[in-house]
Each structure stands twice: as C-alpha cells, then as structure tokens.
C-alpha cells in the first residue's frame, strides 16, 4: 500500500491567477503541499499570498476564519515571533516578485494535519524561503470557523498572477 500518494501536480505553462486543488479525497491521514512559486507583481519584498480551504464540495471559505503565527529569519537576525489578527486567508510562503531577481522562485512546504477530522480546527505548519534579502520563515496557521468539515478544496492565489513555471504539488499521507 502506498504511504505517500501524489494527488496532483500543477505546473503553470502560463501565468495564472489561482491554483486550486478540488475533490481532495478524505482517505489520507495528512496532506503535504509543496510549491516553487513566483508572483507577477512588479514590486519587491514580501507579498501576501492567499491559502484558503473549502469543504463539502463548495467554494473555499472566504470568511474571517483563518489565523497565522510565524517567525522569520534574515541575513543578520531572527525576527520576533508574530501572531497576526484573524483574517480571510493564511499567507504561507515567501513569494519572490518580478521586481526581484528573475531566476528565483520561492519554495514552501506545507503540512496540513488531520485535515479530514471534522471535530478539530484544521491546522497547518509551513517552512518557506524566497532566497532574497536573506529571508526564511516557519509558521503555523489554522482554519477555525467552527463550521468547517473535512478539507476537500485548497485554493492558492494572490493579488497578482502566479508566474509561468510556478509548480504546486499536493500529496496525501496514509498510515501503515
């Protein structure tokens, strides 16, 4: 029996506004999501991305039902641990923009634990780096609306497009 299964990989052959994984089966214990991504935004520096969950076959939840807590490291220091106000998404990734070096795609690994358990708020952890200005981050996020069920949809978007060549892979992890 497979322990880690590839659910889907999306490799963008053109810029795209969103990447969405749908009809995620509830047959795994955990999910893990890897992406190497870049934003079409013209600026530089940290850009917000939106990771959102859906359940029951519907669209993702856009309510103020998400939280995030993270710590960042830089070339010269480690920043303080930050808990942001609850919001409508989890920004899980340092995504380089078009105003930054062209050959750099940020990398992020997200673990979404016990995602099909309807008696828990869905919790994730992520590690990320954009390689630019010496920045690395580690964080945790939650989807806590109280009405959520098993995660069957994950949407990844931002204010600008994802750039061609960005790649997103979702895996399911089973127990033995």
């Amino acid at each position, binding site marked *: *029996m*497979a*322990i*880690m*299964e*590839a*659910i*889907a*990989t*999306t*490799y*963008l*052959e*053109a810029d*795209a506004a969103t*990447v969405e994984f749908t009809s995620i089966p509830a047959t795994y214990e955990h999910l893990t999501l*890897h992406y*190497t991504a870049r934003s079409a935004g013209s600026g530089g520096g940290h850009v917000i991305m939106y990771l959102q969950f859906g359940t029951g076959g519907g669209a993702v939840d856009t309510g103020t039902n998400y939280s995030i807590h993270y*710590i*960042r*490291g*830089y*070339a*010269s*220091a*480690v*920043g303080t641990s930050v808990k942001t106000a609850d919001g409508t998404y989890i920004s899980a990734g340092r995504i380089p923009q078009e105003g930054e070096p062209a*050959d*750099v*795609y*940020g*990398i992020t*690994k997200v673990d979404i634990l016990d995602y099909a358990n309807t008696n828990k708020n869905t919790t994730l952890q992520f*590690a*990320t*780096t*954009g*390689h630019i200005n*010496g*920045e*690395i981050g*580690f964080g945790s996020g939650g989807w806590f609306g109280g009405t959520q069920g098993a995660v069957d949809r994950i949407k990844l978007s931002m204010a600008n497009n994802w750039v061609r*060549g960005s*790649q997103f*892979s979702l*895996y399911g992890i089973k127990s033995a």
Partner: protein
Amino acid sequence: MADPAYIVDGVLTDGEAWVAVGSTTISGTSTTSVTFTSTDDGQTGDFSQYMDLCFVCSGSAIYAPASILSLRYKINSDASNYKSVRMKGDRTSATGADENYNQLGQLVSSDPASYQGVTVAWFFDINSAKNKAILTQNGMDRGASQDGVIMLAGRQYTQPEPISSLYFYEPNGFSFQAGSRFDLWGILPRMVTA
C-alpha cells in the same frame, strides 16, 4: 529495459509517490563522502522522473575534540554557485545569517560519543531550469554539557541544470563515524493540466 515495479505498461499502479532511491550506512573509519548519482536508466535511481528529492542524514564524524562539524554538499560535482540563509538556535541565542557556500547541515564530532546530527533536506523541482532550491531542517543534541543546534535554512544552487548527482562530505576531510546513515528518496508528481 524493464519498468520499475510501480509502473505497469507506463501507468502508475499504486500512486506511491515516495520512492527509495538510495541508502548508505557507513562502516569502517575511512569513508569521507557519500554520493548519489542518477542512473539515467528509467529505473528508481533515475533522477529525471522525480519532482523533488528528499535527503535524510543521521551522522557524526571522526574528530576527537568536542566540536560542531559541517555537512556540506555538491550538486553535479560543483563546489561553487551556492547561496543560503538560515536561522539557528542554540541554548543561549537565536541568530540569522547568510551562508553563501555549500553548507547543508551539521555533524557531531567524536565527543560526545554516540550523538548524531540530523538533517532533512528537500530539493525542489530538480529537473527544472530554475535555480535549484533546497529547504533544510537540522537538529543536533549533544547532551547536557554541550550546546545543541537547531536550524532552518533556505539554500540555493544558482545553476539551471537538472540535478544528476548529490555529493555529501565533511569539509575538513574527516571520515564519517560508522553507523552514520544517508538516505535519499525521490518524490514523483501526478501531473494535471494547468
């Protein structure tokens, strides 16, 4: 040429995404490096089929004084073209720093005995023309009398070629301790239309 067991008539049969590529456990006292090279034959050792690679090391090196040693790496035998940033904590402080060389993780020296440095490294999108990006997590405990280290790092090999070999070594030329272990897995994609 036969297909790997998880591919039948060109189709993935069980969806297994995590494929064991190679494993080395050190014996003796003279091994100073470990290399994993793509077999380029369509079998499990062929790197060209994988989206990512995952490397795990539990290791120490032969050097008598109590010391924190480095585990370094080379992609495609290249000793240059590396960048990274890391944040590190020991028992007294947390720091951030650039490490613009081919640092990957840490190894424990011979003192204290029987402790290991552990490194998990994810090599992303290894067959793309992007700069190759690596996310590493390290942990090293050396008991109550010595500092330990935990570290999270984003590393880059700033060349566009696909990864066809990975070479791991201690930069002073110290041998790995017997029992040190190095494992490599390939992570398969399941492509969908974008």
